[in-house]
């Protein structure tokens, strides 16, 4: 994809994920056994030959810097172009407390300096693998100022309530973007990403600052639907909206569907992440594992069903893990029982401890906690 740079915008709210986002942005949530959500966005771009990528983070930058570092896993540690991380700055002359539009404006020089004339912008609310080359072709051939990516979804269950909804005219022009309240069962879901001409982007951001009518970049773009030529590109594949703990849990569990597993992990290029140098996973004598995704470096001697097990997890003899997400280096000792739960990194569940959540409200255990047996006096 010549002539196109990438932007990842952490505008996704962190408020609905409880302690999972205490120290990390929503875009940094662990996903699928060995990834973080951001890996999918970065890899999708890198695999389709975008070589300049700016990541506009929120304020929780430590996990971003730890994970992304110099961009080496994505081959973005380049002398020319590569990865640029833009945390919000303390030292801007003018800042507003709400929204990220000033953040984008104060980094205008990043856009101006780069040689690419088009930008692919993605927020991190939606998880999908886009056929970006095809979408880019559509954008360029239509000569639109902006090409918005969407998916036509049937949503009788209301999974996508409060997501963004597009109204598209007969000729494919975008008419407006609003919020889906569930009035229609079938509608056009905004996929969180779009192509835009760089000069149009620059005009929209400047105009939003001067008029003071948008706090967020997304808001500024949406305000401009009438002023520029916006058209639409339909995404054919799977899509997940990750807005709260329940969505997040379900999106992980959906990977147990082999088609979704293949699509998210293999279609349009592979997914890169930070390498932890884990050996293979060892299944011991008493292991019984079914319908699960298991990362490397685990040692399993218990029973695992319908679960996502991250790298370096240990599961003891006679332990049961069911319908759960167990993150990196968590240790589940012998005879423990875990059902409908999300265990963050480096949790310890001691021998015999039982925790049972409900599938609509998964039981979330914060990083590094130790679940011990109550002493009976």
């Amino acid at each position: 994809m010549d002539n196109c740079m990438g932007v990842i915008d952490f505008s996704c709210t962190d408020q609905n994920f409880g302690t999972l986002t205490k120290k990390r942005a929503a875009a940094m949530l662990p996903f699928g056994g060995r990834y973080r959500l951001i890996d999918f966005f970065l890899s999708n771009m890198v695999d389709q030959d975008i070589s300049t990528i700016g990541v506009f983070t929120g304020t929780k930058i430590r996990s971003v810097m730890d994970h992304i570092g110099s961009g080496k896993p994505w081959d973005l540690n380049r002398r020319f172009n590569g990865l640029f991380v833009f945390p919000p700055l303390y030292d801007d002359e003018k800042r507003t407390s709400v929204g990220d539009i000033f953040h984008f404006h104060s980094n205008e020089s990043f856009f101006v300096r780069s040689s690419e004339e088009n930008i692919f912008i993605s927020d991190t609310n939606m998880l999908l693998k886009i056929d970006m080359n095809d979408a880019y072709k559509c954008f360029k051939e239509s000569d639109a100022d902006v090409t918005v990516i969407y998916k036509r979804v049937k949503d009788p269950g209301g999974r996508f309530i409060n997501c963004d909804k597009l109204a598209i005219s007969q000729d494919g022009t975008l008419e407006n973007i609003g919020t889906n309240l569930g009035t229609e069962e079938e509608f056009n879901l905004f996929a969180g990403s779009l192509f835009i001409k760089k000069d149009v982007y620059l005009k929209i951001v400047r105009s939003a600052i001067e008029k003071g009518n948008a706090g967020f970049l997304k808001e500024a773009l949406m305000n401009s639907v009438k002023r520029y030529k916006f058209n639409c590109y339909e995404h054919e594949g799977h899509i997940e909206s990750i807005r709260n703990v329940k969505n997040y849990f379900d999106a992980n569990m959906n990977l147990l569907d082999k088609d979704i597993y293949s699509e998210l992990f293999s279609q349009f290029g592979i997914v890169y992440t930070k390498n932890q140098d884990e050996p293979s996973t060892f299944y011991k004598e008493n292991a019984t594992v079914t319908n699960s995704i298991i990362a490397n470096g685990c040692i399993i001697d218990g029973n695992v069903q319908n679960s996502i097990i991250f790298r370096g997890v240990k599961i003891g003899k006679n332990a049961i893990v069911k319908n759960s997400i167990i993150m990196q280096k968590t240790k589940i000792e012998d005879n423990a029982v875990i059902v409908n739960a999300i265990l963050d990194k480096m949790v310890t569940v001691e021998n015999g401890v039982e925790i049972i959540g409900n599938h609509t409200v998964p039981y979330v255990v914060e990083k590094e906690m130790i679940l011990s047996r109550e002493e009976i006096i």
Partner: protein
Amino acid sequence: MKKEKVLAMLLAGGQGTRLKTLTKDLAKPAVPFGGKYRIIDFPLSNAANSGISDIGILTQYKPFQLNEHIGIGSHWDFDRNTGGLRILSPYTNEIGGRWYKGTANAIFENMSFIDHVDPDYVLVLSGDHIYKMDYKKMLEYHIEKKAHATISVIEVPWDEASRFGIMAADKLGRITEFAEKPEVPKSNLASMGIYIFNWKVLREYLLEDIKKEDSSNDFGKDIIPAMLGDGLGMYAYTFEGYWKDVGTIKSYWEANMDLLSDDNQLNLYDRSWRIYTKNKNLPPQYVSEGSIIKNSLVNEGCVIEGHLEKSILFSEVAVKKNACVYNSVVLSNAVIEEGAKVCNAVIMEGVTVKSGQEIGEKDSNNVYLVSADDIIKE
């Protein structure tokens, strides 16, 4: 005062003919091992973990897969601005080109490179062995003993001793005798092919050795005996732990199987001495409904729908429904189709075991090497 400077020279040109089709397209150091590694990962990771920052890798035989695997050395943190990892291939000069002959000759031919790095010590390693060892400790021993050369040794079973270079040493560790593959071994202390030399001393002996027309230019056969003959201070550094030179298909299979015992000495899960390898960026393994996995080591990208016991699966292996893999080593991208049975076998990369096919028998000492073209029994 800067640290003493060490340069590691890793001999990675071995052909490994006794491994048959396993080494048809690659050098022995590139042979896959332990579910996700290649043999060379062990000495490379040892070097990285020992804090060595300069390493030359001497390649010669079919180096493409090895070069592709090593890349710029970034997996072992050897991708440095200065120093780091260098691949040293044979080259030509005014006189013409010369291939590496013996082990010592490979070092000799790279003398101008070594002089350029200007190390105090040269650590000679072989890319053929599987073990975990802290070379820093061996170097400390070498310095403490004020040795001219130190050879790492390991106790081997007496009946195998005649396959190795065998050492006799006095109480202080000073080597008194050395015999390369003796018919009647006088000790069971075998050379592991790991040497530390003071570069200045080694340099002289290499220059002398090259002048001898009948020399095989080999450390074990020529250089070490010459040094010993001159009464140089040569010490044996005794290594305790797992060390294996997988020479045959059977010993290769056994060394892999060793990893499945709970108390295996190689302990790949030890975070304090990790073994690094090329990262393939594969998704986690997928274990479907109805599959059975016991006593097995499974790597990323595998999709298991069948039955797996006492086996090692490398990356992206597919074991289909009702397929059964027992006591076997399955290399990357192999497919075991529905209902196929595999037992006591090594399945090579990308091989498909067809539906209904049965390989090997449960109660036998035979090991089968399965390639796309043939099956070799050993």
